[in-house]
């Protein structure tokens, strides 16, 4: 699944949920700070993307992938992402500015840093997972 194709649908869904005109939505925009998405908008956006792509989306997919990659090493301790966890997140999500992936960042705060690209990547990841499941 190509990022550009997913981006077009994501833009439409964000526009429908928040009223932000799709032509102003950029890949690098952060959902919360720059597009003004709040937690209920995010639920709305995820529900709509689930419906469009016939997938189950979880914003914690990124976290699950990080945990899987890290094996026994802790991803977070008491809700705060470990330095090793931050490194893995940085690899998975290079679109998030490195200077924001700082020590002390909590799992909750990480979601606030998600960009439009992060959202597209979560969708693509889930579509590919579903395809892999079907193939197996």
């Amino acid at each position: 699944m190509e990022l550009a194709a997913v981006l077009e649908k994501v833009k439409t869904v964000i526009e429908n949920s928040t009223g932000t005109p799709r032509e102003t939505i950029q890949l690098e925009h952060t959902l919360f700070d720059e597009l003004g998405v709040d937690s209920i908008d995010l639920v709305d956006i995820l529900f709509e993307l689930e419906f469009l792509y016939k997938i189950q989306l979880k914003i914690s997919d990124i976290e699950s992938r990080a945990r899987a990659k890290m094996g026994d090493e802790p991803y977070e301790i008491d809700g705060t992402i470990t330095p090793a966890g931050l490194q893995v997140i940085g690899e998975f999500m290079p679109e998030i500015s490195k200077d924001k992936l700082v020590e002390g960042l909590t799992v909750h705060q990480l979601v606030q840093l998600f960009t439009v690209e992060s959202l597209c990547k979560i969708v693509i990841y889930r579509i590919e997972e579903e395809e892999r499941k079907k193939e197996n």
Partner: protein
Amino acid sequence: MNLKLEDKVVVLTGGTGGIGQQICADFLEEGAIVICLIRKAEKFEKLKNWLSTKTISTAKIYANTCNLLDANNIKAVVNEVIETHKRIDILVNCAGSVVEMPFALLDESHIDQMLNTNLKGMMLLTQEILRPMFRQKEGAIVNVSSITAIKGGRGIVPYAAAKAGMDAFTRTLAIEVGRKNIRVNAVRPGAIETEMSKPLEARMDKYIPDAMILGRFGKPKEVSKAVLFLSSNETASYITGTFINIDGGFIV
């Protein structure tokens, strides 16, 4: 007044109970499509027979068996409803049960049963039905709570606690989803003439004039009309997070 509920898709739990069957009847009379989520299929036949005795058409009422304590089952059932009817406009959470017994004598299974039936199942179903409502950018949820949520009585401690939970659920969910044009309200019936209230009726007969300002038990229709009022965008489009007490003045 035309409530404009014609062909609105209503999902309802507890549709085979005393209040629930009247809610079904009233929605059907308004031309709505009613989907009853039920535990046992045979109860639906009884409901259809009862509706027929009231000369209400059963052409637009359907049933889906559903275990309201099984999130996967709920998901499958809601998907099936969407597949068939394309949308869900109204959810009425009316399923409930009560075991009357002093709290000190209840065992854990009774407590679980009352919290699960009256609170957890309703939450799981509502969570799933929010999906289509979010997509539609419209929806109305009406919870059938109880006057015991705000004025207790003996022998119903977990039931009253669960209904108070339902009230808090109603209020807080209304805040969460209001901006998505989904309204969440509740009715609080008092003593209503149903099978469920028969033991209460027998016990309270001589106290009723003192307890209820109107001096009598309520009728299921007096509850169902309020449910339809809160469901309809014609009458309640600007009402959310609120409660209608239908108790004959019990709490005054």
